[in-house]
């Protein structure tokens, strides 16, 4: 999280969903700049040809969320879906912190798979921080970066996850992220463990 917003400024969190094309980020940031905004955190993805952007911005206190939304609506295509909210000073306390793990499942593409996975994670108080999907040899592989409560029994969790996913025809694995970083990054292992 950034430093608290000064009283003369106002922070928004904005999401933009629009068919992808060249120049979208420029158009959005031009609009933010025109309202004297300064972008803080920003993340974009493209899924099946749709551009999705989430960012925070600080503006003079007289600028409203409605003003920013109206500006972006006028700048972007008619299909664009823009949402602007006042950003809270602190992140919601209900999001659990924990050890960073990677959840993977592999199986046939069929409805209900993601619901099954996410239900399991919620039941174990595991927060999803990121999610992606890959296709491999005709199978769908879901990869989620999650936060597992530190007090969790990893062995029981592994077994429970495997058992829970098996009826859905999924092979499932839950591994601490360090193993992926160790095998794919250049850097000392010691530094990895000490982080």
């Amino acid at each position, binding site marked *: 999280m950034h430093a608290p917003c000064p009283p003369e400024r106002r922070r928004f969190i904005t999401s933009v969903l629009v068919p992808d094309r060249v120049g979208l980020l420029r158009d959005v940031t031009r609009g933010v700049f025109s309202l004297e905004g300064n972008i803080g955190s920003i993340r974009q993805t493209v899924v099946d040809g749709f551009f999705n952007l989430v960012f925070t911005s600080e503006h003079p206190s007289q600028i409203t969320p409605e003003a920013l939304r109206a500006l972006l609506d006028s700048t972007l295509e008619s299909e664009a879906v823009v949402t602007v909210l006042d950003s809270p000073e602190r992140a919601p306390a209900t999001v659990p912190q924990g050890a960073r793990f990677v959840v*993977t499942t592999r199986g046939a593409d069929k409805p209900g798979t993601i619901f099954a996975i996410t239900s399991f994670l919620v039941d174990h108080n595991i927060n999803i921080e990121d999610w992606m999907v890959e296709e491999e040899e005709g199978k769908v592989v879901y990869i989620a970066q999650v936060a597992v409560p530190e007090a969790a029994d990893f062995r029981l969790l592994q077994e429970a996850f495997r058992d829970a996913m098996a009826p859905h025809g999924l*092979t499932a694995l839950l591994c601490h992220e360090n193993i992926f970083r160790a*095998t794919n990054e250049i850097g000392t292992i010691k530094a990895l463990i000490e982080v």
Partner: protein
Amino acid sequence: MLARQAVLSTIRMVREENLDVRAVTLGINLNVCANPDPDRLVEAVYARIVDKAGSLVRFCNEVSDKYGLPIVNKRIAVSPVSQLLEGHSVETAVRLCQALDAAAEQVKIDLLGGFTALVQRGITPGERTLIESLPQALTVTRRVCSSFNVGTTKAGIHVDAVNLIARKVIETAEMTRASRGFGCAKIVVFANMPEDNPFMAGAMLGPGQPECVINVGVSGPGVVKRAVDRLVQADPAATLDEIAEEIKHTAFRVTRTGELIGREVADRLGIPFGVVDLSLAPTPRVGDSVGEIYQSMGVSRIGAPGTTAAVMLLNDAVKKGGSFASSAVGGLSGAFIPVMEDHALSKAVAEGTLTLEKLEAMTAVCSVGLDMILLPGSTTAETVAGIILDEAAIGITSRKTTGVRVIPVPGAQPGEFVDFGGLFGSGVVTQPASPGGAEAFVNRGGQIPAPIHSLMN
């Protein structure tokens, strides 16, 4: 977010390609236990091992659960036990071996190494006591492994020690006749023995090592084989340097896994991390074979001309990948050729395409030596000594580690099948093209001098 290919490739290694941590080995220095009173000596050794290793298995399991990666073996390597036996009897040596065995059982590990003597230049009374006790000690225990260093590039080869140990190998085979000479599967004779090898039967905590230390042995022949298969499938015209590069990259990742696991276990135990030994150590399981890697490279009949070059390529690429992955690479780190423990190598010996002489040539370029080889029951001590001398000569001249672990099977003839089960595997009895003929040479004894290039100063 982690790159998706990074996740997928690692998951593939764990799930499908038999990536595991083959051994987490806790080294424990026992010298503090030295005592002229046999009872106190034995008690102190037992207590020290149980104290230091009591949490080893638990912490290994915790780390294994955290990463979803099997740690196949949890083991212990002690400082050379011969150092505790100065002034003691053979009977005490056997009792000490039993104490080691009991301690290993208590802390729930499967093998303990370090019933060891370093005799490359001479034999002290304590070392002689250990050697003399060997047949009985290994007959009455299950988990203890024994090793000897009979030569170094600096010292040459102690032929008297070789002869003495060779006789004990024959005696051990005879005393474990009921298990087809299995006692010899727990004896390995080295030249240039490493001080930090986590793999059995040659693991021991060498001089100059910390009081306690964690050394890790990773393996991954299945991972390497799959990597080569994928490369060759995508590009059937792949050249050997391209294959070497692929092996190197894979070795990098396997080594990193081992160091990660090892450091975490060491942290939990509150002791230093030592080395990761990246040795492609096969198991009898299909898909976990070093021989299969050679076949994937194009050596369809292991033992054919070109096999030694394939071993050299693999060994070298593994070392290069491993050394880039970690500054803490040690032990043997390369490619093993344990015949009984590798189904493809075992099959090649059974079919006659892989001979003992070819294996000897391969040891010049691999990371260990003649390993887990069944010999006829009629094998003489002189023949065993000659085999050890040949391997030691390769080792001290090439400035590398070489070793011999041969099993004369009482009553067995060449071609006979023997199955030890589990990780020790199975195989067919083989023999040198000329089993005898050098007895007079071997029996001269003495010391083969160090090679000229040992004069480095």
